[in-house]
Each structure stands twice: as structure tokens, then as C-alpha cells.
């Protein structure tokens, strides 16, 4: 039985385990139908031209983990940002882990999607927001069909959430191959501010495929800063879908740090549904071996006087491959839009490759839109310059790569995240230099 058939039959079993009386039931059924019609994306789909899921889909994934697996905090502490106080919503093999988590209902809701989907007090929120930003593409639909667990975060108006919120999904590898489909919903009301850190982490070498959907609603003047740390094992793959709807004067940023995993696809969609909105999309990708990272972004400028800033840096070694597909749509009424997009890449080997494709669809006539992409090698003259000052080759290379990534790291507002990222990069490059740029 192939994975699609397995999922279709699993869906019937899944339906029996969840409450069918809720409005979500219809949403799930419809989504399943949509997935059935479309199937998994293939290279024939324009949006998947450079990313093939074939090798990832060939495993016999368990859709529901058979047993509950417990983890000790001390064994996995290193995957947390642990030097500052944070809220934590932690899942192990798709199941909520209460002893690793720190949730709250004190003025804000940082809790579970499963609770939000079933408890009456969240019903209105779910009706208003659930699946209202996600698109109907096949993999998002598949996630919607099985949507059950993940983080539910609601920040009511005028709240500055002092502690960042970490959403972490662990997989233990107790199943031979595991498919995870986390579903997060984040609603940030007027004037509120929240910072979120998301990570998917496999703990063994068994294959894991995560098909994640996150919907974020940044209401009037809200500020949402989202950090995605992707440094997973070689056996783990991730298809992430993040949909962000912004209301007027809100600021939303997503920083994606892609350093690991077999195949990583980031679908990041921003919708600007008001004036004077600011959207920031930044990423640093540093990969090697046969790893593959694909950034597929969309910024839809729907209203006038808004800005978007995209800046993606990629460094590709060995036989690694990258894709950047950045689409900016400016509607006819979205005058005075400022949309910037940059994608810079360094190829460290002859066998590494990057496909970069800016896509601008501009229907307004009074806008500033720019895009630029570069593909180059490490600057040899800069290397000799640094080495002639006593900096060894490996460290000189690392310093150049840090410098290259610097303006993305620079806009990270949580110093502990910046330190962590710097450390991951240093580890990856095999250097130990205490510079901070």
C-alpha cells in the first residue's frame, strides 16, 4: 500500500477517535477530499519543480505512534533555549509532554491545539481562525485533515509577552518510520507582542517526515517575531507551511535557520490585510552532504503603504542543493508598496547547486519593488588576506561565512538565539572562535 492509500484508510480510523460533533469535522473531511484529489505534489507541479519528495515518501510511515514515549529533560536540554525563562509547548512523537512543557492560561493562552479544538470556550476562536489562513494545497490539506495536536497560542490585546514561547517537537525513533503532522494556531490581538521559537528534532536515525502547518494572525498593531531553528538529523525531513495574516500597522518577522535535515521545504506565506504593515522574511541556510533546503515564499501586498523585506543567504557545500522561490504580489490598489527581496548564495563545491527564482507580480504603478540574487564562491583574495594575518584557512572560511550571514543574524532580537545560532554555525564549520560580529 502506498503512503497515499495508507493515509486515506488511516483517516477513517482517525475520524473514529476524535469528536465528530465539532465544526472542525467538516473542515477535516473537506481537506481530506482535497488531498485525495491532488495527491502528493510531484515535480510536474511548478511549485515543486526543484524539490522531489520521492525518496522521502518511500518509507512506510506510522501515522499514529503506537506507544507513548517519555524523555528526560536533561537528555534533551540542549535543544531548548535554556538560558532564559520561556514558555514551552513540547511534543514527543506527536503527543503532548506535560512534564517537559510550561504552558499558561494566566492572561494569555499558551496551550494545546487538541484542547482548543474540543473545549467549548475556544469554539469561537476556532470558528474565526482555524484554517482561515492556510491554503488548500495538497500537503496543507493533508495536515488539516489530520489536525489534532500542536500549540494553541492566543494573546489578548495590549499584552507584551515577556517570555518567548518555544514550540518543540521531538521524535524518539521508537517507530521505524514516523509521519508527524503538527498544527499550530497563533492569534495575537491588538497591540500585543509575542516571540516564538520553533524546532523539530529527531533523536534517532529512523526516518521522520514532518508535515507542519502553522497559522499566525497578527491583528492591529501586533508584533510577532518567529524563529525557526532547523538543525535536524540527516534522516529527518520537514515540510513546513506557515501562513501569516496581518492586520493594519502590525509587524511580523520570520527568521528561518536551516542547517540540517535530509529535505527541508519552507512554505512561508504573508498576507497584508491592512495599511502600514511591515513583513520581514529572513533566512540563513548552511548545508552540506546531500541535504536539500527549499524556501518558497509569498508576500501578498493587498493594501497600500506597506513594506516587506526578504533577505535569504545560502551556503552550500558537498552535493547539497538549495531552492529559493520568492513571490511578491502587489495588488492594483496596493500603492506605495515597498517590497525588497534579496537572495545571496555561496557554492563551496562544484557539485552543490542552487536554483533561485524571484517572481514579481506587480499590478500597482506607484511602488518600489526590488529583487536581486547572486551566486558566487568564497572570495579567494579575502581568504589570502585573512590568512596572511595569521587566521588559519578553516577559521578564515568561517569568518567569511559569518560575515556573509551577518545581516540576517543582526536582526534577531533575542540575544540567546543569536548566540545559539552562532554556536551551531561554528560547530557546523568545525571552528571554535569566540568572535561575535
Amino acid at each position, binding site marked *: 500500500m502506498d503512503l497515499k492509500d495508507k493515509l486515506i484508510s488511516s483517516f477513517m480510523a482517525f475520524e473514529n477517535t476524535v469528536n465528530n460533533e465539532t465544526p472542525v469535522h467538516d473542515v477535516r473531511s473537506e481537506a481530506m477530499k482535497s488531498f485525495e484529489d491532488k495527491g502528493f505534489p510531484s515535480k510536474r507541479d511548478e511549485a515543486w519543480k526543484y524539490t522531489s519528495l520521492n525518496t522521502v515518501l518511500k518509507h512506510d510511515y506510522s501515522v499514529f505512534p503506537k506507544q507513548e514515549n517519555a524523555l528526560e529533560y536533561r537528555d534533551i536540554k540542549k535543544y531548548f533555549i535554556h538560558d532564559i525563562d520561556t514558555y514551552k509547548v513540547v511534543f514527543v512523537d506527536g503527543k503532548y509532554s506535560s512534564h517537559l512543557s510550561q504552558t499558561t492560561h494566566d492572561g494569555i493562552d499558551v496551550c494545546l491545539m487538541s484542547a482548543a479544538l474540543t473545549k467549548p470556550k475556544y469554539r469561537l476562536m476556532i470558528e474565526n481562525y482555524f484554517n482561515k489562513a492556510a491554503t488548500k494545497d495538497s500537503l496543507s490539506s493533508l495536515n488539516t485533515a489530520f489536525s489534532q495536536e500542536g500549540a494553541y497560542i492566543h494573546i489578548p490585546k495590549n499584552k507584551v509577552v515577556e517570555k518567548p514561547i518555544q514550540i518543540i517537537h521531538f521524535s524518539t525513533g521508537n517507530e521505524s518510520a514516523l509521519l508527524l503532522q503538527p498544527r499550530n494556531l497563533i492569534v495575537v490581538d491588538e497591540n500585543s507582542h509575542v516571540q516564538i521559537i520553533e524546532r523539530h528534532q529527531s533523536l534517532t536515525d529512523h526516518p521522520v517526515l514532518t508535515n507542519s502547518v502553522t497559522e499566525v494572525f497578527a491583528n492591529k498593531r501586533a508584533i510577532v517575531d518567529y524563529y525557526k531553528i532547523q538543525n535536524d538529523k540527516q534522516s529527518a525531513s520537514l515540510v513546513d507551511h506557515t501562513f501569516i495574516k496581518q492586520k493594519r500597522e502590525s509587524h511580523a518577522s520570520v527568521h528561518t535557520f536551516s542547517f540540517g535535515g535530509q529535505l527541508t521545504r519552507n512554505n512561508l506565506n504573508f498576507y497584508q490585510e491592512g495599511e502600514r504593515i511591515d513583513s520581514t522574511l529572513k533566512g540563513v541556510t548552511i548545508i552540506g552532504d546531500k541535504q536539500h533546503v527549499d524556501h518558497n515564499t509569498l508576500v501578498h501586498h493587498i493594501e497600500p503603504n506597506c513594506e516587506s523585506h526578504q533577505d535569504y543567504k545560502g551556503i552550500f557545500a558537498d552535493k547539497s542543493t538549495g531552492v529559493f522561490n520568492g513571490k511578491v504580489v502587489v495588488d492594483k490598489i496596493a500603492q506605495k508598496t515597498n517590497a525588497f527581496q534579496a537572495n545571496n548564495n555561496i557554492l563551496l563545491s562544484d557539485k552543490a547547486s542552487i536554483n533561485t527564482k524571484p517572481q514579481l507580480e506587480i499590478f500597482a504603478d506607484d511602488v518600489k519593488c526590488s529583487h536581486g540574487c547572486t551566486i558566487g564562491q568564497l572570495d579567494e583574495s579575502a581568504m589570502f588576506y585573512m590568512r*596572511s594575518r595569521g*587566521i588559519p584557512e578553516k577559521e578564515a572560511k568561517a569568518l567569511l561565512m559569518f560575515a556573509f550571514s551577518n545581516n540576517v543574524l543582526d536582526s534577531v532580537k533575542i540575544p540567546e538565539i543569536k548566540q545559539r545560532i552562532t554556536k551551531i554555525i561554528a560547530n557546523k564549520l568545525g571552528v571554535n572562535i569566540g568572535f561575535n*560580529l
Partner: protein
Amino acid sequence: MLKINDLHASVEDKAILRGINLEVKAGEVHAIMGPNGSGKSTLASVIAGKEEYEVTKGEILLDNEDIDELAAEERAHKGIFLSFQYPVEIPGVSVTNFMKTAINETRKAKGQDDMPANEMLKMIREKAELLEIDRKFLSRSLNEGFSGGEKKRNEIFQMAMLEPKLAILDETDSGLDIDALRIVANGVNKLKSKDNAVIVITHYQRLLDYIVPDFVHVLHEGRIVKSGTKELAHELEEKGYDWIKQELV
């Protein structure tokens, strides 16, 4: 300190140095002059360890040790410093962080611990003052958007920080106005001691009024064709390089 014997070097199979002999002792200043394309910058790069150049014959000895097999950074650790004719811009790395990394990597190579932060800051301040460098300048990205003069001053600042045994100044005077030239030369002179040596590569005599050489060598078609004292530089200034070429014929 430095002894070069019958050095031949080529780049992409094109012979550029064709038998250089040169000895530089501690405490000396040598000037290497010569027309464009005579191999001056190549000689500087070969001594500093640029990999594009292949030494096909001969040897370079530093304190009686053949350095041909050493990487550029290892030569730097042994005290060789090259002030670049065209310093490279490195966006995203500040002057201060670059210097910290260079100094601590050099110390690491010698088995020493990192320089304590306060000591480093003090040193940076002192050396910046010597080169009349503004503090703000130190937090800027290395060489990015620097004027020609700022770049060269920054090179000598780095030399001051690294305290090399043998400094090679490759056309440090090019692109400098007279004030910057004076500052740079003054910096070099203050760093001079009986234990180190300087090789000044220049096209013109002008810099040699400030950094006075003990010996002057004329390079032509990859060979040192004439050596003398500082008077030779004046003679060259007056008569031009054609005079040397004719003498050779």
C-alpha cells in the same frame, strides 16, 4: 633574517621571478624598486605565501628555515607581514573583531592563551592613536568603503598590532596624499627596531624620503639587476628606469 637564494616563481606557467637573490638582516630597511611588471608585487606575494604562485626553483629562508612549504597563516605566525597594495574589503567583519581573531589565532598557534580583553583594548587604543585612527573607524567593516588613505593606514595599524619580524610594504604609498604618507611612514618608523626588518616595495622615491632605506634594489624582468644605497633611489628618480635598462644592454 630573510635569505632568498636563486628564487624562481611562476603563475599559470608564466615565469615571473627568474633568480632573485636577497639577504635582509635584522634592523635593516630594504627598498625594492622597479618598473611596472618587473615582479615586485609577485616577490611580496611569494614571500607571504600566496598559493597561486609556484616556486619552481630556489629557496626562501626565514631564520635559516625554508618556508616554501608553509601556508600563509603559518608564515604570519612566524612573523611575516604583508601590507597589501590593494587591501581586500570584508563586509560584516569589523576592524576590531578581525584584529582580535588574527591576534588570538597567532597566539593559539604559539601555544599561548587568548589575549585578555582589557589588554587587547588597550593595545588597540594605543596603536590606533599612533596611526591617528578614529575610534569609530574600528567598528566599521574591514576596508569597506574606506578611502585609499584609510585602507593603507589600516594596513599599518594591523602591522602595529601584529608586531611582525619582517614587514613587507607593497606600494603602501600608492593612493596616499602627503599627510597620509607622513602618518603611515611615521607609524612604520616608530615600529622599527634592531630586531625587525622592513622591505619597502615602491615605484617612486617619495616614500623613501620618509622611510629611509639602508639598501635599494632594482628589479627588472624578475631579477635584481642593481643594488645600492639610498642614493640609487635618487638616481632612479632623476634618470628613470630606462637608464637601468640601457645599462643592461
